[in-house]
C-alpha cells in the first residue's frame, strides 16, 4: 500500500479538477467537492476511464479497470469528493482496491 499524504491528496484533487474543467469546458472555480460529475459537469463514464488511465500513467500504477468497477458497486460516485476519494484509493491500493 502506498502512503497517502496531504500533499499527494491535494495534487490528485488538482489533477482531477483540472481534468474535468478541461474536458467539460468549464472554469475550474465552478467545480466544488459537492458537484455531481454527470449532472453538474456533464461528464461521462468514458471520461472517468480516461482519468483512471491518466492517474495510472502519472503515478506508474498497475491497476485493472475491473478492480475499480467492482469497488464502484460498493461505493458509487455521486460527487466530486467521491471521485477524489476513489482516485486516492486507486493510488494507495492499486488492484487491492477490490478487497476494501
Amino acid at each position, binding site marked *: 500500500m502506498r502512503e497517502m499524504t496531504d500533499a499527494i491528496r491535494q495534487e490528485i484533487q488538482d489533477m482531477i479538477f483540472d481534468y474535468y474543467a478541461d474536458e467539460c469546458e468549464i472554469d475550474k472555480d465552478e467545480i466544488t467537492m459537492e458537484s455531481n460529475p454527470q449532472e453538474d459537469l456533464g461528464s461521462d463514464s468514458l471520461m472517468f476511464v480516461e482519468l483512471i488511465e491518466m492517474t495510472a500513467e502519472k503515478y506508474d500504477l498497475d491497476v485493472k479497470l475491473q478492480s*475499480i468497477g467492482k469497488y464502484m458497486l460498493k461505493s458509487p460516485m455521486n460527487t466530486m469528493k467521491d471521485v477524489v476519494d476513489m482516485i486516492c484509493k486507486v493510488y494507495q491500493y492499486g488492484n487491492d482496491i477490490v478487497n476494501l
Partner: protein
Amino acid sequence: MSNFKRAFLFNGIGTKPEKLLRAMTPAMVEKYRSYQHDGFVRLGLSENISENASMDKIAAEWLSSLISDRVIFEYYIEKGIIPDIGMGHSSGIVSVSACFGSVSHEFAHEIIMMNRATMRSLEKSGEKQDMGTIIGLSIDDVNELIAENNFSTDDVIVGSANSRICTMISGKEETVEQLLLAAQEAGAIKVIPFRIGLAYHHPMIRKHSDEYVQFCGGGEYHDPKYPVLSIFDQRIMTTGADLMLENQINILNPIRWDIALKHLEEMGVTEFFDVSANGAVGKFSRINKRKGRIYTFDEV
C-alpha cells in the same frame, strides 16, 4: 510515404438532437435548421421532433444526427480541412456515403427512414430485441462472459468492439439485460442499455431487414470523392458499388471499429477528425496518442 494522413470519422445514431445543437455555433445551428427544415418537410416529419408519431419520432431523431454530421463535415471543408479517407460507425456509413458524395443527402435520409420498416416487422413478430454498451470491458472480456454464462451467440453477441474499454452488445432483450448485469458484476465501469427494441449488428435482425436492405441497394451510388475504409473487412472502398454493399450489410453484421481504427493508424493516418457535433466518436474511439490525435470541430 503514405497518402493517408487525415481521416474523417462519422458517428452513428444515438445522440439526442439537443445535445448536438448545444455544441454548435449559432451559424452552424442556422445551417442545421435549414437542412432540417428541407429534409423534414420533404419526408412529412414535424420539425418539433416530439410531435411525431412513435416510429417517426425515432427516425426523426436519427435523421438529426445525420444532418448534424453534414453541418460539421461542411465546417471542416470550409476550413480547408480535406479528408484523405473516411470511416463511418454504424449509421455513420450512411452519413459518410452522403457527405463524400456517393449518394444524395435526400437518399441518405430515406435510408434512415427505412429503419421504420425494420421496426414494424419486429413489432409484428413480437420479438424483443435490444442493444447496450459496456464501459470498461474489452471484446475479449465480454466474449469470455458470454461463454462463462452459457449465453448462446444466437441470443447475444458483441455488436461492435469500439475500443478496448468500450464494447457494444446486441441480441435478445432478456439476454442483453442478463449480460449487462454479468458485466457489471465482473467489474464494468458502467453498463448502458439502449432500450431501442432493435438488435442492430446481430444477424437476428436479418429477417426483419429485407425492405431496408433492398432499399439501400435501389439508390443511385457514385464513386465517393474520398476513399472510405470498411468497418467490416478493412478494405479501402473507392466505388459506388462498394458503398452500396457497405450500406446493405451494415445493420446485419458486427462491427470491428477498433480494428478499423488501428488499420487507419497502420496506413499512416495521424490526424483523425470527429464529424459528430458532441465529440462522440472521439470518446468511444481509442487511438495511439503517441502516433495520432482525434480533433473535434471546435479545436480547428
